[in-house]
């Protein structure tokens, strides 16, 4: 393997991985010989798509946090809980572990994801001198924790089906639920569509060692 130097990229050799079956292919062939998918050296439009999805998600994060996500009735009294007041209510009831789990899944993770992806996309778009290795580790974390935000929606659906006894005891989702579901969906897709190889092409090579 003397020809393969330390920092050589597949693009320089005219090689690419098949996007669906990960087989090494010569780019000139245009289609993967194993599964027939269309080959691409880079997906340049993925950056724009990712930005568009991310900005939409960031905007939807506002209604997701302002409007009530659950409407709970107990003995004639109705509470409208936003994500945040729902969690403080759990703290008041002294159910701290659940409060921590829901805080992480519903508030910390979505915000971390949006901030993280914004840093990531800005670094690619404006060639910021941030360590690529750190960006990539952050990106893997974002991809992995993102799905845990679904937790709150599952809890809402279980509670709403179980607890409906009119004025005595009743739980139902509030308008923030749809916005929150879309935030999870859009951020997840934004991370998925991005061609991360662009990061390694665009930033200065001196950051490589970081």
């Amino acid at each position, binding site marked *: 393997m003397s020809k393969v130097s330390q920092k050589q990229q597949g693009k320089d050799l005219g090689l690419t*991985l098949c996007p669906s079956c990960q087989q090494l292919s010569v780019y000139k062939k245009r289609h993967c010989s194993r599964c027939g998918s269309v080959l691409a050296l880079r997906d340049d439009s993925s950056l724009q798509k990712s930005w568009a999805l991310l900005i939409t998600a960031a905007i939807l994060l506002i209604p997701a946090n302002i409007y009530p996500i659950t409407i709970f009735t107990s003995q004639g009294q109705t509470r409208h809980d936003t994500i945040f007041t729902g969690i403080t209510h*759990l703290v008041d009831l002294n159910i701290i572990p659940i409060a921590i789990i829901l805080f992480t899944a519903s508030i910390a993770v979505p915000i971390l994801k949006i901030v993280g992806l914004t840093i990531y996309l800005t670094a690619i778009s404006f060639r910021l001198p941030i360590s690529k290795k750190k960006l990539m580790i952050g990106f893997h974390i974002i991809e992995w924790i993102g799905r845990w935000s679904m937790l709150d929606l*599952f809890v809402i659906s*279980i509670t709403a089906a179980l607890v409906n006894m009119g004025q005595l005891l009743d739980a139902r989702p509030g308008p923030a639920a749809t916005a929150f579901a879309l935030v999870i969906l859009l951020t997840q897709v934004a991370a998925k569509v991005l061609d991360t190889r662009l990061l390694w092409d665009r930033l200065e090579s001196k950051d490589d060692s970081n």
Partner: protein
Amino acid sequence: MEYNCADSSVTLCRSCDLVISKRALPSGVRALCPRCHTTLYDTPYCSINGMLALCLTALIFFIPANLLPVLELHFLGSIRTTTTIEGAMAVANQGYWIVAIAVLVSAVIAPGLLLISVLTQILIIKYRLNVPFFREVLKRLLRFHELITQLSMLEIYMISIFISVFQLTDYTDIYLGMGTFCFAMLFLVTLFLQREYHIEHMWNIIDE
């Protein structure tokens, strides 16, 4: 600069496109990209019969896990129960159909499709791979495998069942149903199945 593709001693990193020379790995070890730490490959080994057994077990639990109640609520002498699907329907009936679709897809449809897809793949490999029609089916299933895996969120649903129990115990009595047991078993068996299953190994079988 051109490169001969038949050379299988070289691979690329899917995240950063670095050229990497492949080396033989001891079993249970993963190769990571030296530049960006993405998982590159591991020693692909899976036992087809073991996976078949796990897959059938999971399918046996799948139906009761979705049809039997996962939670029971006892309140002033009356009993309410809910299944996963009823939970989704309850939100849909109140107009939150995006939430309902998200719940249905990640807790019922994607896990179900995943099991059926893996079962079909195993049966094709075990019995009649050489027919072109089945090869084509296998290729299609493998191409959709990653998407289905990402959509399937049994582990998150499992935890949300327990969170609901804790949240509601303050107001009323909550009991776990038979469905909870089946759901937990479905989750565990699927977890083991996914640990056994290696998509690279499946693709390699097509090559042979």
